[in-house]
């Protein structure tokens, strides 16, 4: 699951490896078991709801990465394929005769087919070129369909959207999907299935050619492949899985609204994918998990969640363009060389103070926010299980000191870390 998809032509080893259709079974079994066990660790309904949201985002982000990471196509309007798939599923749900004739777990396929259908129509003209032209067409089409959602009420239901009831499907082995836990297993099944299919797709000749077209369309054409059709196939496949995500959304929330189509959703999926890392197959999975946690869990704790999310995002783009996945995979060579131990201490010396410093900075931000915007007379605030008065000097001094000391130590130890890193990445030597 952790194979690097980016083929860097300058590294012969990677050039050689492309093309095998094999599937390493190990990681998938681990993933399946993890998916099965999660509800036993988190039993509450809200945890299940949040996890469902995570898995839906995972499917959608993986579908998006088929375009961005594997095909090199930047789309600003990908939410519409998920949205249209979801709306189609809602209409099937509301068509009671049709809906009662098949069990609920089949429904996402219809979402996928509708997403794919729309992708075929749009792809017919948008995939002729990549780059800015493709990006701007996707933006235009995305805006058009989002705007249609409030105009074409018959299909999109206007502002209040279309809602239905999932329990009217044919019972699936006696299960009517009344409870969150039933839906959780349905979603988990689909996320695993979609991820495997998408992974296999990236191993097919078409998936490989998508990489080639991304890196050098001219050479791909010389080899006899039509860059346009390769892009078209990637786009259509991506549309299918986006539609599956839309179908899962329909099952989970039983309502679809304009927000499933609008440009903000399209932007979010771009952020999610990039945060996780576009260069690796599992990158978007990490991105989806982290982002959902930030959006849903952090926003329970602080009003400033979007501020932190934005900062995290900017820091990722500026310092780790490979995303979180790229950051992890940086350590693989070290691990292979057996020098991971050398890094542990320097890491602890730098990262722990840095983390403390950043938390101190967050405290300062929260205190400033509280000072400026809280109710008059409401001087009390609680941070990290400590309640104090934000209008006295002491907490500010403490927070500032923590920040300064934490970041100071991190800055001081950073050169040593860099040295250790270089050392660990050098083959031979002490090991």
């Amino acid at each position, binding site marked *: 699951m952790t194979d690097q998809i980016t083929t860097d032509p300058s590294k012969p080893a990677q050039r050689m490896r492309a093309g095998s259709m094999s599937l390493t079974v190990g990681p998938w079994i681990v993933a399946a078991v993890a998916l099965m066990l999660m509800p036993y660790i988190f039993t509450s309904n809200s945890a299940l709801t949040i996890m469902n949201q995570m898995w839906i985002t995972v499917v959608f982000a993986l579908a998006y990465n088929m375009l961005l990471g594997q095909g090199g196509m930047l789309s600003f309007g990908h939410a519409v394929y998920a949205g249209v798939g979801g709306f189609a599923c809602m209409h099937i749900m509301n068509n009671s005769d049709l809906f009662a004739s098949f069990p609920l777990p089949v429904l996402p396929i219809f979402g996928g087919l509708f997403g794919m259908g729309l992708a075929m129509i749009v792809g017919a003209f948008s995939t002729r070129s990549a780059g800015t032209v493709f990006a*701007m067409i996707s933006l235009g089409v995305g805006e*058009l369909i989002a705007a249609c959602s409030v*105009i074409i009420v018959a299909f999109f239901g206007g502002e209040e959207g279309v809602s239905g009831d999932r329990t009217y499907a044919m019972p699936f082995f006696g299960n009517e999907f009344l409870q969150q836990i039933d839906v959780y297993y349905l979603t988990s099944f689909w996320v695993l299935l979609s991820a495997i299919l998408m992974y296999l797709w990236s191993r097919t000749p078409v998936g490989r050619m998508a990489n080639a077209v991304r890196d050098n369309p001219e050479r791909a054409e010389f080899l006899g492949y039509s860059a346009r059709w390769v892009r078209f196939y990637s786009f259509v496949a991506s549309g299918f899985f986006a539609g599956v995500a839309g179908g899962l959304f329909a099952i989970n929330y039983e309502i679809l609204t304009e927000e499933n189509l609008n440009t903000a959703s399209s932007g979010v999926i771009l952020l999610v994918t990039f945060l996780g890392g*576009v260069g690796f197959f599992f990158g978007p999975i990490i991105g989806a998990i982290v982002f959902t946690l930030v959006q849903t869990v952090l926003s329970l704790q602080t009003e400033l969640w979007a501020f932190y999310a934005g900062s995290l995002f900017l820091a990722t783009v500026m310092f780790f*363009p490979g995303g979180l996945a790229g950051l992890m995979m940086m350590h693989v060579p070290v691990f292979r060389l057996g020098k991971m131990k050398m890094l542990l201490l320097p890491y602890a010396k730098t990262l722990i103070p840095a983390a403390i410093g950043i938390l101190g900075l967050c405290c300062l931000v929260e205190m400033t926010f509280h000072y400026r915007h809280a109710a008059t007379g409401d001087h009390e605030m609680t941070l990290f299980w400590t309640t104090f008065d934000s209008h006295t000097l002491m907490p500010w001094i403490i927070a500032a000191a923590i920040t300064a000391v934490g970041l100071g130590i991190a800055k001081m130890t950073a050169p040593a870390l860099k040295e250790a890193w270089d050392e660990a990445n050098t083959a031979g030597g002490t090991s």
Partner: protein
Amino acid sequence: MELILVNIIDGLVTGLLLFMLSAGLTLIFSMMGVLNFAHASFYMLGAYFAYQISIALGFWMGLLIAPLIVGVLGAGVERYGLRRVHQYGHVPELIFTFGLALLIEELVQFIWGKNQMPYNVPEVLNFTAFSIAGNSIPAFKIFMIFISIGIFIGLLYILTKTRVGMIIQAALSYPRTVEALGHNVPLIFMGVFGVGTALAGVAGVIAGPVLGTFPGMAFVLGSIVFVTIVIGGLGSLWGALVASLLIGWMTTFAKSYNIRMSDILNGIGISTPENLDDNIFRDFWTVTSPQIADILPYILMVLILIFRPAGLFGKRES
């Protein structure tokens, strides 16, 4: 008839405002290949800074100082942010500006809160310049027209008649050659980015009192700026002007006249189906031009990209 004249003036104001934003963006885009998603955020910053300054020093100092601050901020973003990301390629650059737009909106809310700011037209300009058949044209709109035309002429002069302009134009097409000739291309990039964002700041200063100064003002403007420069053709100042005016007039006229889809369809010989309420195309039949006015530019853009990817005035494919 009078209404047409009024609409022409209104469309001109909208178009020229759009031009001030797109002029800077088209230069940045064609030079650095960056779709600067944060461009509208600099426009918002312009409005907020001007509001803050206008409390202390009055509107005119705001008009003078706020764009400068925005420009310096913009240059700083280029120097310490974009230049760093530049090495990773265009997509990370674009995503950087995307994240920056989010962050700026959050920062503005952090500092000024979430409410609309009482940033108003200065007293000197708060009168009706003239009226046409009962429709008054505020003096501030005339002022906006003059400022934007002044900026256009100034830009055109700098780009075509001065040495700096020549170097910029050369750097647009052949950055490596220009660098080989001994010019400091990164400095030019930084300068262009700063000037471009400062122009967005000017737009914010003069649009804030009319269109409202609130944290969503960048989002409302949205991606229409990109649409403008893509329609106009990347890197073309004239293209940006023509596309801005085209969009300004197109949306203004579409909103001013209630043209119904059923009238158009009846006009070309398709008769309205009976039982319209049950028809699945009922929404299509009842569409009116004001409803779709704001998405007309997007339709135009998609059509242009399909049939003329270089845009109206562009020389090269984007």
